[in-house]
């Protein structure tokens, strides 16, 4: 066994470039697999980290809604459950304006008692003066805020809160963590709970209760009991598993797709490398077999080699995976959490799975060439007579066409619940179909190119086109490029479409300013209309995450529609008569995304779980919308108001006849007592694009990685092809081909290979793009795909660039070939 291991290690060591290529392929696949797996947990942690700013370690929240009798309530009903709770922390929180150095900053003012806050959301003071007793006009700021605005202990701050200016004394500075963490919008400060309660005439009361349960298994039961104790207040979990899952899924899906591309390419590279390895080793295999080794034994030697690549690549891949995970985290970390070192969450089983995957990739990809080599009779190996011309395999063409045909025609017939698995199978089918057709398609292209090349490149062009026929190295390159380009094309098309649709979503709004404020009603609208530049307003009732009990699903957003106004504010393609019909009863219009997901028809009933209990709504029609990923419905505002027990508007849409930015500032100024959240549509769009930008950056990084691995693979194939063709290249030199002609021929070959690879990649990519709506719908977003001509052209160009760049070394090697040596030996 020792001799065999030594033999294998020597083989691995001798071909350094090939070893490097296989190792990179294995390593990247396992690294990306690990990073994607671990990202899911890390992303959940990140989500919790984001939410900690607000909720600390609390599990449950109780707060007033639009429909509560008051904004404040007593803590004592909750104290009845003290035995089941680790803590009950009360607070009053509001927004304020901090006036410092003639600049007005938005400030989150949090009223707490310090011992309670410390329990719920631990903080660390770095300096304090006369902090205790924590009462009166004392305030704690974060160290970061103090440094940024040159504030010191003992300074007085002027804060505009609840419409009046008040002075607070800085008595402590805290590390910018926990409640003092900058949340991307507000600077946060803590004041005594009593102080805020006194200002608001609510002494002894709180606006929010934070609770931590002792036994997480009883969370549901406690929510139920607390809801009964506080019947007109909202009792909910701080962070739901579903929210975390959705956040994590939105991040990991794209990475999983990228990882699959790299995996495909790695499998192909290892497969082609092992085809060469087994061919090279045939003489040794023959020797082994002639002295008594069985087929199993010789195959075992090659399998040990492939497993070794898996083991080494897996070990390196795990290390690289941690690095990749860290880099992804740095990219997706929100701006306000940048000062927090991301905690990478990964487990030994995840590392183990990545390691096992590496071994499996190496082993499975090499299995076919190994088994094929083992089937060659020993006599043929020794006499080197295994050179029978291969018959063209008609079954390849037929199978290829059947697979492509299936991938192109099946999507419209797939039921929703099978979208994800079917789309994955169809993607595999189309890629394999194209790989099987590549020799035939290449010959077709070559016939065309040969005619054009005569005029473009002269006789060397014809020669290059002839050389490319049935050239395995070039066919492998074309396959590699086709896999890479088609997959990247699909991923990039989806990314571009998502980005474009995000933009389009904001363009569907026919208003310019979006406003959220506390207890908004017709009075608020009247106030707004008086503001210079405000042309019209529309207050709307909405409901989020409404459960559909008969379908065990939910609608993410329901708009309560005023039939006369709605279409003036939203460019939604829906028949106005249907909007009018909504007013005639409990009727609902749902998006086509939901229709497809639920497979429902006009006239079907949905049972909605609403504040006043379950209500039956009849579907009267469908419309296209991407709002909230297409999980969107419309009902009459009067029924939404009634069934959800709403008194106040949830959103206000404002049309302006002046610069929306200026009008928005005026509105903020005029309504500052209500601490409104006002944003222009342009700002919302920019924020969303910004939020997506980091994700796209990571995706582009992954695309680049796939291109790098593809370039390595192409380079490897070209070197192999050069080694195999040394003799015929020497022959051409012997009958008069000059060095320049040789280089020119090589580059034309590379150009042609790249061009054909690019074109087939684009063809295959178009098919993948036609399948991808199934994935998009299954994952949540029914986003129309935007085809970009420049993306298609740049894909072809990328194919050409990769092959031409990778052919530089073999081209120059061919020109400096030792003709005599290459010709002499058979």
């Amino acid at each position, binding site marked *: 066994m020792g001799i065999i291991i030594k033999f294998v290690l020597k083989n691995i060591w001798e071909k350094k470039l090939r070893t490097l290529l296989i190792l990179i392929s294995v390593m990247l696949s396992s690294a990306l697999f690990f990073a994607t797996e671990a990202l899911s947990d890390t992303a959940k942690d990140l989500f919790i980290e984001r939410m900690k700013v607000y909720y600390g370690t609390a599990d449950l929240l109780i707060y007033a809604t639009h429909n509560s009798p008051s904004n404040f309530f007593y803590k004592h009903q909750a104290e009845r459950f003290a035995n089941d709770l680790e803590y009950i922390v009360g607070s009053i929180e509001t927004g304020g304006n901090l006036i410092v150095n003639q600049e007005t900053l938005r400030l989150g003012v949090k009223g707490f008692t310090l011992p309670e806050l410390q329990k719920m959301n631990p903080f660390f003071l770095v300096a304090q003066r006369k902090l205790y007793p924590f009462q009166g006009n004392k305030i704690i700021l974060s160290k970061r805020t103090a440094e940024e605005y040159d504030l010191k202990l003992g300074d007085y701050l002027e804060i505009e809160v609840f419409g009046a200016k008040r002075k607070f004394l800085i008595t402590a500075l805290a590390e910018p963590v926990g409640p003092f963490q900058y949340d991307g919008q507000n600077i946060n400060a803590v004041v005594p709970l009593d102080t805020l309660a006194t200002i608001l005439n609510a002494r002894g009361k709180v606006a929010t209760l934070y609770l931590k349960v002792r036994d997480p298994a009883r969370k549901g039961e406690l929510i139920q009991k607390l809801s009964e104790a506080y019947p007109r207040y909202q009792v909910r979990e701080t962070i739901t598993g579903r929210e975390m899952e959705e956040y994590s899924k939105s991040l990991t899906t794209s990475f999983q797709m990228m990882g699959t591309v790299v995996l495909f390419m790695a499998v192909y590279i290892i497969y082609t490398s092992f085809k060469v390895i087994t061919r090279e080793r045939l003489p040794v295999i023959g020797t082994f077999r002639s002295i008594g080794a069985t087929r199993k034994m010789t195959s075992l030697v090659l399998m040990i080699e492939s497993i070794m690549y898996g083991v080494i690549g897996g070990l390196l891949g795990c290390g690289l995976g941690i690095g990749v995970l860290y880099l992804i985290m740095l990219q997706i970390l929100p701006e306000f959490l940048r000062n927090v070192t991301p905690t990478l969450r990964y487990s030994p089983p995840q590392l183990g799975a990545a390691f096992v995957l590496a071994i499996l990739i190496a082993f499975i990809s090499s299995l076919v060439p190994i088994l094929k080599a083992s089937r060659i009779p020993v006599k043929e190996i020794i006499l080197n007579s295994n050179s029978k011309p291969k018959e063209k395999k008609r079954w390849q063409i037929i199978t290829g066409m059947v697979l492509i045909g299936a991938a192109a025609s099946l999507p419209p017939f797939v039921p929703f619940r099978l979208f994800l698995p079917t789309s994955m199978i169809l993607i595999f089918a189309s890629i394999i179909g194209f790989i099987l057709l590549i020799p035939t398609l290449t010959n077709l292209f070559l016939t065309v190119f040969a005619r054009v090349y005569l005029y473009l490149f002269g006789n060397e062009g014809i*020669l290059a086109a002839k*050389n490319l026929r049935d050239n395995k190295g070039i066919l492998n390159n074309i396959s590699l490029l086709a896999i890479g380009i088609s997959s990247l094309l699909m991923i990039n098309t989806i990314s571009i479409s998502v980005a474009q649709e995000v933009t389009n979503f904001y363009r569907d709004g026919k208003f310019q300013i979006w406003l959220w404020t506390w207890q908004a009603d017709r009075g608020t609208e009247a106030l707004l209309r008086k503001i210079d530049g405000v042309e019209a307003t529309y207050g709307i009732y909405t409901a989020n995450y409404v459960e559909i009990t008969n379908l065990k699903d939910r609608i993410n957003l329901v708009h309560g529609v005023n039939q006369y106004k709605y279409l003036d504010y939203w460019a939604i393609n829906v028949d106005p008569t249907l909007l009018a019909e909504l007013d005639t009863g409990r009727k609902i219009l749902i998006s086509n995304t939901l229709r497809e997901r639920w497979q429902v028809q006009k006239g079907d009933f949905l049972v909605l779980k609403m504040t006043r209990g379950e209500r039956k709504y009849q579907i009267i029609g469908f419309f296209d919308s991407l709002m909230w990923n297409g999980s969107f419905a419309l009902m009459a505002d009067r029924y939404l108001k009634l069934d959800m027990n709403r008194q106040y508007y949830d959103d206000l849409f404002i049309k302006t006849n002046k610069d929306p930015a200026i009008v928005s500032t005026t509105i903020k100024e005029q309504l500052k007592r209500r601490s409104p959240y006002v944003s222009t549509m342009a700002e919302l769009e920019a924020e969303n694009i910004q939020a997506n930008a980091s994700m796209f950056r990571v995706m582009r990084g992954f695309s680049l990685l796939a291109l790098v691995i593809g370039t390595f693979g192409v380079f490897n194939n070209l070197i192999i092809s050069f080694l195999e063709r040394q003799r015929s290249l020497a*022959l051409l030199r012997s009958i*008069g081909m000059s060095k320049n002609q040789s280089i020119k021929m090589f580059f034309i070959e590379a150009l042609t290979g790249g061009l054909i690879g690019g074109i087939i990649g684009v063809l295959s990519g178009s098919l993948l793009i036609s399948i991808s709506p199934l994935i998009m719908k299954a994952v949540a977003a029914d986003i129309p795909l935007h085809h970009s001509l420049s993306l298609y052209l740049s894909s072809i160009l990328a194919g050409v660039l990769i092959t031409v760049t990778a052919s530089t070394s073999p081209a120059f090697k061919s020109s400096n070939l030792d003709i*005599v040596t290459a010709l002499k030996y058979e």
Partner: protein
Amino acid sequence: MPPIIETFKLCKTFKLGEVEVEVLKEIDLTINEGEFVSIMGPSGSGKSTLLYLMGGLDKPTSGRVRVKEVDLSIMTDKEESVFRRRTVGFVFQFYNLVPNLNVEENIMLPVLLDGKPLKAYRNRLDEILETVGLADRRRHTPRELSGGQQQRVAIARALINEPDIILADEPIGNLDTKTGMGIMALLQKINQVQGKTIVQVTHSMEAAAYGQRIINMRDGKVEE
């Protein structure tokens, strides 16, 4: 007849690891136009090396080769390539055909490399195919031909650009006797009918006998 190939104190040394092997030792040789010369000698005597130097496939360590009064050592790569295309035609022991090109395409390769239009060579191609007896095999690929037929294609390829010299390295070394003699008869006919100068390297006395002159080599020297 005037000389067509001349060598002057031609030396070739190969480095095998640390050891230098002198393959050719100051060879002075003249081959006249229209001659059919056979170079014979044991393995390692330097006969193939001499042939490759005459054809400009290799560079001498010292000394000179003059073909048609032109010194090969002062040629640029481009001039050398043109020389190999137009002045000499090579025939190798293992035929060296391009496997994925058919008979016609293999024969036309030197024309392609010379940048000439293929159409202009149609008649010449037909003539050559008749000469080598492969008119009915023009669309076949090398894999579909016997060894003798493949060597005929190689000879046809060597002739297509109408070179003055044919250099053949063991042209029948890979063929059975009967087929080999057929090839030799073809080369002899080309020499006699077309007046081409032919230099062949061979181990076979029978093959050598088709030539007009035999040059014997031993240990890198000519023993005429």
